[in-house]
């Protein structure tokens, strides 16, 4: 309240967001330099970089949905389980007998449907998002295990169109990378250029104000979780393409990876403020770390330490960026 009609003022939020992205871009550049120095022959090959993008595509697509949910003031813990369920449902014998198009449709419908259930529980059942999606996490994994009889379900040879999403090449890149790029681009447009995105910020920033401004907050919340579910369904297609399987073990702890990527991307966990570009950069940072560690033959346990350190560092930086006088 001290800044009334004064010329010098703290930087507007938009500028700060650019700075935050600059930090992530710097982190990516730093990681790339590490890669170039430690493994000059292996890191900067097109095969490796394509591989990193392909690996980032499953968690990346899920993170797009998670970004919407978190900006909208919620949280979705069920993403990994929903992906597993969608992958299992899409690879049952019955589904597979209808061919790859139906498998894709099945994964999308299962993901979106389960997301809708999340949304209904939260917006109309008035459950806390943490609890509703935690319940969905447990239940969806259970259902996936029951449907698959705890087996890994292979994509049958006649449905190898699914696998081709990962083995094929368009302009030198596997189709799953284009799927990821398309979801990310569509997500960016939806968040930054449409009324849906604007309402998402409003609902997450101040739900009461949004309601009194005439926004149907409950319906919007419902749609956010359905959107997250849809992303899980798309991610299920990618994981089916990459592993040629559907399994109840897919997507283990994805919820934590996705939330971590969203947070280091500069989105507030309390909602109302955030950036999709940051989330995508966050996913790439994490994927690149894994890649660098394996290229250098280091243990996965060390990767976890590095990831933890990055999350803490990012959140500390974020807080500095947000500090303003009152």
């Amino acid at each position, binding site marked *: 309240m001290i800044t009334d009609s004064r010329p010098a003022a703290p930087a507007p939020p938009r500028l700060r967001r650019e700075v935050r992205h600059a930090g992530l871009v710097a982190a990516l550049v730093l990681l790339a330099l590490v890669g170039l120095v430690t493994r000059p022959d292996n890191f900067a090959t097109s095969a490796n970089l394509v591989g990193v993008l392909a690996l980032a595509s499953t968690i990346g697509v899920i993170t797009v949905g998670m970004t919407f949910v978190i900006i909208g003031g919620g949280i979705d813990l069920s993403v990994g389980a929903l992906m597993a369920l969608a992958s299992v449902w899409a690879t049952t014998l019955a589904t597979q007998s209808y061919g790859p198009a139906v498998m894709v449709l099945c994964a999308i419908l299962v993901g979106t449907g389960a997301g809708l259930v999340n949304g209904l529980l939260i917006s109309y059942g008035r459950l806390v998002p943490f609890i509703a999606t935690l319940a969905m996490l447990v239940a969806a994994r259970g259902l996936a295990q029951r449907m698959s009889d705890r087996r890994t379900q292979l994509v049958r040879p006649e449905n190898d169109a699914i696998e081709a999403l990962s083995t094929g090449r368009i302009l030198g890149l596997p189709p799953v990378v284009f799927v990821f790029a398309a979801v990310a681009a569509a997500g960016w447009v939806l968040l930054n250029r449409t009324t849906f995105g604007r309402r998402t910020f409003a609902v997450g920033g101040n739900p009461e104000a949004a309601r009194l401004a005439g926004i149907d907050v409950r319906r919007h919340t419902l749609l956010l979780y359905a959107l997250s579910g849809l992303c899980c369904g798309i991610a299920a297609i990618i994981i089916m393409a990459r592993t040629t399987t559907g399994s109840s073990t897919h997507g283990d702890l994805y919820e934590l990876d996705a939330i971590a990527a969203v947070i280091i991307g500069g989105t507030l966990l309390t909602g109302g403020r955030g950036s999709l570009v940051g989330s995508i950069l966050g996913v790439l940072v994490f994927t690149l770390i894994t890649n660098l560690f*394996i290229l250098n033959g280091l243990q996965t346990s060390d990767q976890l330490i590095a990831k933890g350190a990055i999350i803490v560092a990012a959140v500390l930086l974020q807080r500095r960026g947000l500090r303003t006088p009152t």
Partner: protein
Amino acid sequence: MPIPSRRGVLFGGAAVAAGALATACTGNDPADDAPAAQSAAGGGDNEKPGRPVTIGFSAPAADHGWIAAITKNAQAQAKRYSDVTFRAVEPTNDINQQISAVESLISAKVNALVLLPNDGQQLNQVARKAMDAGIPVVNLDRIFPDKLSYRTWIGGDNYGMGVAAGHYVGRRLKEKGVAKPVIVEIQGIATLPLTQERSKGFADALKTHGFSVTAKQDAKFTVETGNQVAANLLQAHKKIDALWNHDDDQGVGVLAAIKQAGRKEFFMVGGAGSANAMREIKAGGLLEATVTYSPSMAASAVKVARLVAQGRGMTDLVELQAPQSITLASETVTRQNVDSYLPIGFES
């Protein structure tokens, strides 16, 4: 741990295979939706009905194809005997629940127990209680530390798996005349002792051929982690000569990653012996062999439990009672012998 000779106590593999051809593999086979299981009739007098016995069974809940196969195999084997009543308790991954489940079997006064504990250390006490109550315990795979806690242990040989894989890789590379081979190993969960034993056996066997592991990385026994680790590892090494993957479940993901990277210059050896891996071997791709750690051991355990409860010995041995310890050999399945192993391959 001593390396068992290849023809040592060969109880699981071949003997089981002989009788089990009938139970075909299923999973993605639409013609047959019955659960896959390996069990065996075996031969000799022991197959004739004896005194009726009740065999209690407790194992962890399945989170992996291998564990799922264990329970199925035990059940299927018990069904073969008219003189066996099979009492399986609800599988669980909770130590406390498993303890109380075993206690309920003890108070139900079963004639023998087959136990695959979640943790050998933590279930030792309750197994000991069963033995003290006069109920013989057949300990499956994860061993109890106290020998008074079980009558017979039957399990696989993790070190032996590594050795079998190491020898196969060593011999094939020698045949090919590769001088300085790049050998890559994809482990399961790195912190588990069984993973460390497998890796040690692999390294030891390679050493006898004058080779060593170039790089190893751990996955988590799941298809997805296998795919992820392999995808990165393939980029770390542009030319590979041989790859050993500890686990055929995660191997599905490894094979997918290899295909996605378009790599063909090396051969791969699997582990555990899933039906899917065997079909790949038969088809003749990159996956040339797999070394078994067969869940058929559960069927054998039920067989042994029945004999112990009825006071009978194993007819192929001279002794009048069943042995105290049976370590299954890790067998190498290749294109040449895959047909005889396919029936005992488990669906992952």
